[in-house]
């Protein structure tokens, strides 16, 4: 930023600063809105944009100011492009005609439709796991909060990777169990914790981790973590939200790639990433899945996932299990590699090794000007800053899809490099 530009106070504010007040007055709302308005007054507010069309690689989006921008879309999770695939849309339309808009009831009562059963069977068939069932939720976030709090109680132990998703943490807090954390992917520390727990009393223990960690774009050390859990008779929950349908030879996730798929007790996925829909599921033993259907409160006391989305997700899953899926899996990985190569000599790519390509830009105060600049140059990306990541470790996340063209990848890389030079986080200039 130029030295002549008067410093904007809103650049110093971070999301956590408006978390609340312990007093009776409610000024956090006003203060938060004041911050938003200050940014909007500068015509620089890059959040809460609206897409004008599907989540394709190139989209038009409207900012809160009303301005319409055409951008390369690297901020949605539609990794294999199934969210707008014609067969998926057709399946959803047919279900909409047949079943109407919503399920209008809990899945345990009268909100179950034949499309739900079909999705459950398709999920289990896709995973190729005998003796397993799927429990489908209307929200991917709800899978973790519901499953963990259904199975774990106050006297139990939950051991979490430090980088685990908020939904896992909230599920663990809801369960009220004793929480333990191991440093990200640190199997030795996990073993120490499990050994300590085991040395005391016989208790139910659940170890939670992920296939791909979305903040860093790196893989979970599933082979080591699942083996350690088994060694100490602990259950495992692996959230493959960002890796289901993409990682592994058959798209069965990082657990497949690491050869531990059959050893994972609770395999969690969402439908909003590579399947391009919304909702989620846990795949577990038939007994556990049936129990979860009833005892995951956010499932039992929520309306079932809507039938049109269910049918669309099922079709996306069928496509994902076909040669189309194989092709797109290869392409998304190849695209991510190409983008990394285009960026590597100009910016810090962090530890990312998946289809979530991260670019570190450091200071939080760069967040708003950076995202504003990216959008105006023609790229929409996701940004993460404190408190989602440590202070001074802010980053851009680029969600690469199989449908991005080489030209779009090149343009995106050029925009990032130009912004890095302007804002001052290019590794060439340092």
């Amino acid at each position: 930023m130029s030295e002549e530009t008067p410093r904007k106070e809103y650049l110093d504010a971070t999301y956590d600063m408006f978390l609340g007040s312990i007093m009776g007055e409610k000024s956090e709302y006003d203060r938060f809105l004041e911050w938003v308005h200050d940014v909007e007054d500068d015509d620089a507010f890059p959040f809460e944009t609206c897409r004008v069309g599907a989540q394709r690689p190139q989209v038009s989006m409207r900012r809160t100011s009303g301005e319409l921008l055409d951008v390369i879309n690297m901020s949605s999770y539609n990794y294999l492009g199934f969210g707008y695939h014609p067969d998926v849309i057709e399946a959803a339309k047919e279900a909409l005609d047949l079943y109407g808009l919503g399920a209008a009831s809990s899945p345990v009562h009268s909100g179950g439709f034949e499309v739900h059963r079909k999705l459950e069977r398709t999920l289990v068939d896709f995973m190729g796991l005998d003796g397993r069932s799927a429990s489908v939720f209307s929200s991917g976030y709800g899978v973790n909060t519901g499953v963990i709090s259904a199975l774990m109680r106050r006297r139990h132990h939950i051991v979490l990777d430090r980088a685990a998703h908020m939904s896992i943490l909230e599920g663990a807090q809801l369960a009220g169990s004793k929480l333990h954390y191991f440093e990200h992917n640190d199997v030795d520390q996990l073993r120490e914790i499990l050994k300590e727990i085991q040395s005391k009393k016989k208790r139910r223990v659940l170890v939670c981790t992920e296939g791909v960690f979305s903040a860093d774009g790196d893989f979970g050390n599933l082979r080591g973590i699942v083996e350690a859990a088994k060694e100490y008779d602990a259950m495992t929950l692996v959230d493959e939200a960002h890796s289901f349908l993409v990682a592994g030879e058959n798209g069965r996730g990082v657990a497949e790639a690491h050869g531990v798929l059959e050893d994972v007790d609770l395999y969690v996925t969402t439908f909003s990433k590579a399947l391009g829909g919304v909702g989620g599921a846990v795949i577990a033993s038939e007994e556990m899945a049936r129990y979860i259907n009833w005892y995951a409160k956010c499932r039992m006391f929520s309306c079932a996932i809507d039938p049109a989305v269910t049918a669309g997700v099922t079709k996306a899953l069928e496509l994902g299990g076909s040669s189309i899926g194989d092709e797109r899996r290869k392409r998304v990985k190849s695209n991510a590699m190409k983008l990394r190569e285009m960026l590597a000599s100009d910016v810090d790519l962090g530890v990312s090794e998946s289809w979530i390509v991260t670019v570190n830009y450091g200071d939080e105060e760069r967040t708003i000007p950076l995202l504003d600049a990216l959008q105006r140059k023609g790229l929409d990306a996701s940004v993460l800053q404190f408190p989602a990541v440590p202070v001074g470790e802010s980053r851009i996340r680029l969600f690469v899809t199989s449908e991005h063209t080489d030209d779009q990848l090149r343009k995106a890389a050029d925009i990032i490099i130009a912004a890095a030079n302007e804002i001052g986080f290019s590794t060439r200039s340092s």
Partner: protein
Amino acid sequence: MSEPSLGGLAFADLWNIDFHCAFLFEVPVGPAEALLPEDLEAVEAAPGLALMSLIHAHYTPENRGGPEPFDEIVCSILVHPDLSLDMPTPRLTLGVLDVWSNSQAFVEYKTGALGMPVHYHPSLRSEIAEDRLSTKVWDHDGPIFEMGLGKIEPNFHEESFYGQYFAQPEQDLNQGPWRWSGRLTEHQRPREASSTLHSHPFFPESVLRGSLRCNMQQLSEPGATVNMRTYAYQVADI
């Protein structure tokens, strides 16, 4: 012929109870859990509410109690069961806080046979109403509780269910299964139930500070005998 074991634990005793009154009261979960051994977890019937079970049993003399009829009162918190025991799913699991009886022989026997904290209180007395639908219990310190159906019309029927208990009279946490069978009336209409718990050394003070709304009542049928089967206990491996 000996009766079958339950949960892998040998049958021990068949108790014949001529009056059995078991009420559940809602108590704050925090103070309730604080009374329990560390390894037990209170059942949270509603957010923030645990359940305290209060039982008055009146026994006929043949129940190892000596020549006279005698009383037993039991205060427990409902806790989560141990489902590793191979037995039908327990309907109730009691985290036993205290057991009082006015029969020394019963106290001595039950302490050894069930591994429970059973205490001898010779001044314990009860008055069961003529219609046998309510009871009062007191001792030399004063009234302990009054419990009754109140205005509720009883609906007696045959019932049989399984349960478990945990108790920690000293160092070890003991556990055992039980089976209740007999004729009872049961309801969950707390606003119409009649019950008063008095401030008395039998009750932990901390739970008496809660709402103490009666949550459920069970009462045995007048003239019918309740059968309570108990089994050998073991040290809980939890």
